[in-house]
Structures are given as structure tokens and as C-alpha cells.
């Protein structure tokens, strides 16, 4: 289909908006963002925690419900994020939404590896599978760690202890 031409104007989003572009519009303007800003702000600020994971099956005429609640602490502090379990027994967590962990302990290790700034250095000697600070392929001479690192101040000795109590 012919594209509308606007020879006296620079190409704009509207100029590109022909029927061949399909049903998905793309306008980065503030005005468009403001149209549903409240909706997305509510989603971003309304994350909830502490739900049970519920699994249900029907087996030989019986309806089975398995509720799982995780009570996880790291260095004695509650780890406030939802953990769930698949029917296959894998544990998942919305903070790393693409991973199925074989155990909650592996999951918490991955949390500490992925968000190292939020847990400090730890006491060290974390066992054979302690993979260091797990912080990706980068050195420390080319960036800072943002306000979270700046606020942390002196490193206190911490007990790197993660406990996961799983009730089924």
C-alpha cells in the first residue's frame, strides 16, 4: 500500500505509520507514555510476596492439592521473594524468571551470585562450589556499582548462611 509522503517534513513516526506496518504502533513520545503510565507504574510498584505455591492433580479419581511454603533467610534476614514449585519438583522464582532449579538451595546460591551487592562479601569459604563473586565478565576498573554500593560503607563480617525450610 502506498506510503503517505511528507516532502516538506522530516520523516516521523506518523510518516512511517502505514497500513503495511501492521497493528502494532510504536511511539516513544512522552504523550503516549502518559496515556497508560498509571497502569505500568502500578504493576512496577505493586509486586507482592509471600504466596504459597499450589499444585493440583487428579489421580485415580482423587483430587490432590500440594501447598508449598518457603521460609528463606540469608544472613538471618528474610528473603522476601516468591518461590514456586513445578509439578516436576523444580523450584522457580520471579527474580530469575527463566530458570528451573533442582533445589531451593541452588536457587538461593544463584540469588547471591546474581545480586552480590545486596548481600556483601560473606564470610568466605563457602564450599567446593563457591564460585567466587559470580559477577559476570567484567573488571572493576570500568564502572561503579551505583548507589547501592556507595551506601554500603565498610564491610562487616557476615555469616553467609542461607536456610530454606520447605514444608510440603
Amino acid at each position: 500500500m502506498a506510503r503517505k509522503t511528507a516532502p516538506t517534513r522530516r520523516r516521523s513516526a506518523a510518516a512511517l505509520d502505514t497500513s503495511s506496518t501492521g497493528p502494532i504502533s510504536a511511539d516513544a513520545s512522552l504523550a503516549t507514555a502518559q496515556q497508560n503510565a498509571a497502569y505500568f507504574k502500578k504493576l512496577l510498584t505493586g509486586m507482592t510476596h509471600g504466596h504459597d505455591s499450589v499444585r493440583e492433580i487428579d489421580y485415580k479419581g482423587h483430587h490432590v492439592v500440594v501447598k508449598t511454603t518457603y521460609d528463606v533467610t540469608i544472613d538471618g534476614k528474610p528473603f522476601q521473594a516468591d518461590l514456586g514449585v513445578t509439578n516436576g519438583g523444580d523450584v522457580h522464582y520471579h527474580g530469575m524468571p527463566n530458570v528451573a532449579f533442582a533445589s531451593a538451595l541452588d536457587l538461593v546460591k544463584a540469588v547471591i551470585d546474581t545480586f552480590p551487592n545486596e548481600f556483601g562479601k560473606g564470610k568466605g569459604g563457602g564450599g567446593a562450589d563457591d564460585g567466587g563473586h559470580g559477577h559476570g565478565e567484567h573488571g572493576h576498573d570500568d564502572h561503579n556499582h551505583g548507589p547501592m554500593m556507595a551506601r554500603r560503607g565498610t564491610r562487616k563480617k557476615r555469616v553467609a548462611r542461607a536456610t530454606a525450610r520447605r514444608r510440603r
Partner: protein
Amino acid sequence: MPVRSNILNDAASRQKYVQGALALKAQFTGVTTQSLGIPGPNRPVSTWDRFVAWHSAVMGTAHSSPIFLPWHRIMLRTLERLIQQAINDPNFGLPYWDWAADGQLARPAQLTSAIWNNNCMGSAASAPGAFTLAAFPVRLASNNSGALAQVNRALQRTRGVGVPGISNPSLPKKASTAAALTALPYDASPWNRNAVGFRNRVEGWNPPNDLHNLVHIWVGGDMLPATSPNDPVFYLNHCNEDRIWEAWMTRNGRTYLPTATTPGAQAAHRINAPIQSPFGAAVTPAQVLNLSSVYTYDTLSV
């Protein structure tokens, strides 16, 4: 009409994608952290980073559910159009990464695939390519509870390292993509990570840690949290997912479940449920099942 091509076979597409990513990272249209409800100083948010916030906001609905594929198709097409505008090329098509082709390589060779060359994605700060701290700083990142926080640091990847319990993984294999094409139906009750069907297979929950999910795990670093669109590799992964979906629909028909009347499904997951976008009008899964007149792929051989 845009043709989406393999990023390793199309130098022009590769260059334009890198150019477009940098342009959107540097584009500010007035959206701020305050308007998104992100704590800390009120700072402008780039167009690229608005996609990070969008993805993070819908983590609970657009993943592990039937709308996983249509939601990301909308996201991809939105980004594609904004890059078209930014680089003034209405025929630009997002490239894809055929990760299962690299998955056929031995693991050491996967790390040296051309996708990690500095003229492509680079390998983060150890060999940054175009995505340096100065040009492409990560400004929004999830904290451990999933909430968005302001940061200022370089992009992070741990390529091939994996996570505890999934050490040194391989990229997905061609056998897995081939198996996904035969998975039926599109989705099924209970419409989540436990479903048996194409969507749950191609997302990578059944079997666990495969296909899309495995690519996130393999790349690691910023590809692990809900803010994974920080990494330009995110879109290459999802463009390949979209290509696999297109191949599946070409083979099995342009069907989607749940329909408007399928019992037991959430309203937000149904075929006519509107998917909200911060960049324009809401679109339904039904509206994006056939975009073959909008863009095509160079090949649907997956």
C-alpha cells in the same frame, strides 16, 4: 517489507541493529524514573530502558503463560519500528540469533561464535564491542526481590558458566527446536509452567531449562533477572523464538489457546485479551497471529 535475517549472515542487519540499539539508548523523550515509580533520584529514562521497565512490569503475566509468544512479538515489533525511526530505515528488520546452530558446536566453540565478536554483541566488559559502559550503561536493574532499582554499571554476562545446579550448560540443540515444532497443541491447561504444549516447550519449561530459558541461563549476568532486555542479546533470542513460533504456525496452523470460551483460563491470557503497551494502543494475541504481510524471516528452517 522488513526481512528478519540471521545476524551471523547479514552484516548490514547486524550493523543497523547495533546502531539502533545505541540510538535508542541515547534517546530521551521525557519519561523519568519518577513517572515509572522507581525509587531514587528523578532521572530521565531512555527509550531502550523503557523496554526494560515494560518487561519487568509484566513479568507475572507475560511469562510462563499463553501470552508469552504474542506479548514478546508485540515487544519485538515495537522495538523494530522504533529502530526504523531512529535510523531512518523503514525496511529494517530485527536480526535473530539461531542459537541452536551454535548449540551444535562444542562448548568451547560456542564461546567464540561470531555473535560475540566486537562488531556484533561483544562479550560484555571483558571485550565490550559497541556496548561499553560509556555508550550503553545499565541504568535499571532488578534487585533480589524483583523490584526495579537505579544503577550505573557496565553490561554483565557470564557466558557458558550457568548457575548453581546448572553448571557449564550448552546452548540448545537443533533436536530441541525440531521437537518443539511437533509439540501440540499451542498451549493447554493449567496454562503455566506445567502445561504440555508448544508454548511451554519453546519457552523452555518442559523439559526444564531448554530453548528460550536455556539461552537466558547460558548468557547469564544481566540476562538472568526480569530486566534481561538490558542486554541486546535479549532481542536476538526472542526474535529466534518468534521465528520458531512462525515456523510452528506455518506447519500447524495459526491457532492460539485459550480462546474466548476455553474453560478454566485467565481472562488476561485469552485470544482477544488486550495487551497494553507504553508505546501505543493495546493489541490482542488474535491481531498478531498473522503478521506475514508486515515482516518475514529469511528462513523458517529452525
